[in-house]
Structures are given as C-alpha cells and as structure tokens.
C-alpha cells in the first residue's frame, strides 16, 4: 500500500471505523462495552427532538455558508480584478485574524453583541434604540453572525482561486460582443467561478453542521446546535455509543446530499457553461 493511502487509512478511515464499531456497543466501558446491540440505533431513530435538531443545525449551517459566500465573493472579486499589486498584502490582512485563537474571536463577538457592547452603543447613540439589552446575544442570530465572520476569510480563498483561473481573454470577448459589465459578470464570470463558490459553500457547510463551541458561548438556550448534544453524550452523559450513532447520522446526513450535489456540478461542467 502506497504511503499516501496508508496515511488516509490510518488517519481518516480507521477513526470512522472505530466510531461505527462503537455504535453497536451496549455501553461505554467495562462489561457493557463488550456486548453487541442495535438499541442505540433504535434510540436515535425514535428520538424526534434529536433529529429535528440535526435538521435545524443543517439549516443554520446552510445559512452560514450562503451568507459567507455572498459576503466573501465581493472580497475575492476585488482581490482578483482590482487589487493589482496590493493583492498579496490584502490577502494576508484577511488571513491574519485566522491566526489568532478561535476562542478569542468568538469572545470578541460576545463583547460586540453584548448588552454594553459596541453594537448597542452605536445604535443607541444614533437614536435607533434605547435599551436593547442582550437582544443580539445568546440566540441563533448571534451564532450565525459569529460563524459567518469566522468563515469569510476561508471562503474568499477558493472563490479567489476560481476567479484567477478565468481566461482574461473571455472578458475581452464579452466586451467585444457588446456585453455591459453587469451582463459580462452574470454570463461569464459568475458561472465560471461557480466551482469555487460551491467549494467555498461546502467548505463552510460541512464543519458548521457539527459546530458546538460558538453555540455554547453565544447561542443561549435557543442557539444550541447538534454538536453540543454530541459533545454532551461523550463528555457528560458518558454514552459513547449514542454519541457515535449521532455522529454517524450527521456524517451520512451531510455526505449523501453532497454526493448528489457533486453529481449536479459535474453535469453543469459537461454542459459547457
């Protein structure tokens, strides 16, 4: 077996296999761990609250991914077409926040969105609202805002790369054929950058479904996401088999739509857009 495959098997396949094996155990430790059972699957399939939370978390992840892409696209566009010689500097500036601790960035949002925070103070001084308290914090909106902020640098990169790959002569051709700039964008640039956009979307969507740190810090009682419960199963409930089933459900729930999605993307490329 070639070294890369060995690497893949050890670091990617084995952990997933271990997790799947855990789904069949009757308990986390000792005697119970040695017994085979399908009860964990039954328990999950009967647990409607968990399933709907998974769906809601996927929904939140989709919104976060969509907003990240929409907000990152202008950034990538500017870097690719207008930044010129400053593009490398600007790119570095965008990436630098990602070098700080993830936790620090989330906590920074807690300060911004909090009751005595920047956002409330600005709105109050503009006369828009007197006492908003913790309106923007400890809810699903805070989770979405914080996650979008964290992801924008990471989404800008694949979109930037896709835009860079577009043949400049295509823009000339569009202009020569009489296309206005906006039309050229819609008919040439956007479709050709779509693989980068989709890559960026998935890049955010997949990890965000299982996100738990941000919901725990800024989500409040309603911003809880699926990852928080998986964490609970492993750390507090000491129910590794159930945690494993939940993780597997999430894996399959995310993997299957993506497999379908990737079929679609290949088709559009074949269609010669």
């Amino acid at each position, binding site marked *: 077996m070639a070294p890369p495959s060995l690497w893949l098997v050890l670091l990617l396949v084995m952990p997933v296999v271990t997790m799947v094996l855990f789904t069949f155990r009757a308990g*986390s*430790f*000792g005697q119970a761990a040695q017994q085979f059972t399908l009860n964990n699957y039954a328990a999950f399939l009967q647990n409607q609250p968990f399933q709907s939370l998974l769906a809601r978390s996927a929904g939140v992840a989709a919104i976060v991914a969509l907003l990240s892409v929409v907000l990152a696209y202008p950034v990538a566009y500017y870097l690719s077409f207008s930044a010129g010689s400053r593009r490398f500097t600007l790119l570095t500036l965008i990436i630098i926040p990602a070098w700080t601790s993830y936790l620090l960035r989330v906590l920074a949002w807690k300060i911004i969105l909090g009751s005595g925070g920047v956002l409330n103070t600005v709105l109050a001084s503009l006369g828009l609202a007197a006492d908003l308290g913790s309106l923007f914090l400890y809810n699903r909106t805070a989770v979405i805002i914080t996650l979008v902020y964290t992801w924008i640098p990471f989404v800008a990169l694949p979109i930037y790369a896709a835009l860079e790959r577009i043949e400049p002569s295509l823009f000339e051709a569009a202009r020569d054929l009489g296309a206005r700039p906006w039309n050229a964008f819609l008919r040439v640039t956007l479709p050709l950058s779509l693989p980068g956009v989709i890559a960026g979307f998935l890049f955010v969507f997949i990890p965000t479904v299982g996100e738990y740190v941000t919901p725990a810090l800024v989500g*409040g009682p309603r911003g809880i996401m699926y990852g928080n419960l998986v964490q609970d199963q492993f750390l*507090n*409930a*000491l129910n590794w088999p159930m945690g494993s089933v939940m993780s597997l459900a999430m894996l399959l729930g995310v993997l299957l739509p993506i497999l379908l999605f990737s079929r679609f993307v290949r088709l559009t490329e074949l269609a010669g857009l």
Partner: protein
Amino acid sequence: MADEPTSAPEASGPLLVLEWSGYEATEYPQFFQPFADAYEGRMDEVIEYSFFAEDAEAYTKLQSGFEADVLHPCNSWWSLYVDSGLVQPIDTARLSNWDGVHPDLAAMGQFSGEQYFVPWEWGYDSIIVRNDLVTEMPTAWADLWNDAYAGHVSIWDNAETAFVMTALAQGLDPWNTTAEEQEQIKQALIELKANVLTYWADYTESYELPTTGDVWLLANAWQDAYAYIESEGYDVSYLQPEEGRLGWVCGYAISSTSNNLDLAYELLDAAIAPESMAALGNEYWYGFSNMDALPMVDEYVVDFMNLDEVDTLTDRTVFYRPLSEEQRSMMSSIWDEVKAAP
C-alpha cells in the same frame, strides 16, 4: 511514617493524584500542611498530579484504564465509583485526624459498612440575586420560572443539577421519581428556556454574569461565586430558598489499583489536619469536614457558611445524593432533550 521519608518514595514512586485544578499540594501546600512540611523541598519527587475539569471526565479517564493512587470525586458519583470497583476501603485507624471529621459528613462516604471516601470540602448550590436589579425578591427555586425575570436568569449547563433543582421546585423527591414526574420535570425545564438568557458552563462565568447586569438570578452558583461578587462591591444576596439550598461534598479516596498506600494515607491525613482545613475555608470560602479547624477560621467565613452549625447542616440543606448509572443516564437524556427543544 513522617519519620522515615526516605524509604517511602523510593519503594513505590511518587503518589499520583487525580485532582481538580486548584488543590495541588505542589502549588497550595497550605491545604496539606503536614505533608508539605514532611517533604519540603522534595515535593516533586513524592507527588504528581493529573487534572480534570469535570467529574465525568475523571470517571471516564479511570474507566479507560488510567491508573492513579488518590482520587477526588464529588459525592453524587461516590456510589458509582464503589460499584465500579474503582476504590478501596479506607482504614480510618491510619488517619490520626479522623476523629475530628464530622460524623454526618463521614457517614456520606460510607457504603456497605465500609468507609470509602474521606469527605474534605463541602459547599452550597443556590441562587445569586442582584438585589438592585430585581423588582421583586425571589424566595424559592420555583421563582426561577417567574415571568418577572424573563431573559434574566442563568442556570448551570449540568443535567444532574437542572433535574434536582426542578424536582425541588415542583415539590418532588429528586432521587425517587416516576416516569410521569420525569416528564413533568422535562416540560418544566423546557418552559424555563423562555426565562434563561444563557446556560453558564464554566464556574468563571458564574463569577462574571451577575456583574454584567444582564443576569439578575444566577442559579446553581456556589458560595465562592457569591463571596467574590459581593467583595467586588455588588449588591447581591445568596438565596436561602424555601425548598432549601442544595449542598455538595467532595472527598478523597484511594484507588483500588494503588500500592502506594503509605504516601496516600499521609496525604489524606494531612488533608484533614485542622490547619489544612482552616486554610481551605479561609482561602476558598469552602466548608470543610474537620470541625477541629473552626477556631482557626475567619469569622466572616464561619458566619456566612454557618460553620458553627454543622450539626444541622444536613437538615437545612438538600445534599446531592449518589446516583446510579441508570439515574444519571435518565437525567442526561432529559437534559439533552430539553436542550434540543426549539
């Protein structure tokens, strides 16, 4: 044994203690004064620490094969430790300070007639109230559900605590519930979500949240959080709810796999020595198990913790009780469904 320090470490290696952060004898020798005195200058040779942040973490570590000599779990886990065979009975005759340990606390560490745990620190679990921000003073755990506090309540993200507190508020026995009562508790916790601003996860949050002004009632705070916030100048009170404050006690045990018994007993004896216990009370505002330490404790701590009334402690406080695996599992499931509810 303190007369022959050279033989003990060489024979069995350093003592490995699975401990909460904040009690390590290498950093806080005052909590184990006789031990620190005996091994001064050689502490790193005779004792080592491995830390955990939650009881569940320590239990998982031990069940996964981690071997330590001395353990420090809290009492709702004690029966589980005994049932899982993780601890060995303690020969109290080897502890010179054992007679000072209050009998009610000592009794909590007994299972099947054997003393498995040496109770060490205890404290309360109650509600911190911002007197200056609430329009009406709460008087009971049940008041957490009062609409007057909507959006200004914070409770601990902990399955056991949430369940017990809610059971008390509903007038039920937390440790003997029927399936209907469990469903009732679950519904009550889901209703509470409307009042909860955020669940606090880390005890440092319990120190910080009441000071922000957003949280008027912080539930499941330990008394050290109250003492800290009050010392910062905030107008707060530490509720004495109608149903009673909750109480917790934690203690030391010797692992069933340990052979390092001489050192272990030395450490435990030093832990319950009066001067060690007084230091614990004075520095952390915690209760302690050896009442001989009382004369050495600051008046403020004695008054606040009612340390001179330990005889009535178990009457006026609802102490957490040891949970079986099924009970713990049931409480966790309920809590997860509460959290999953939209």
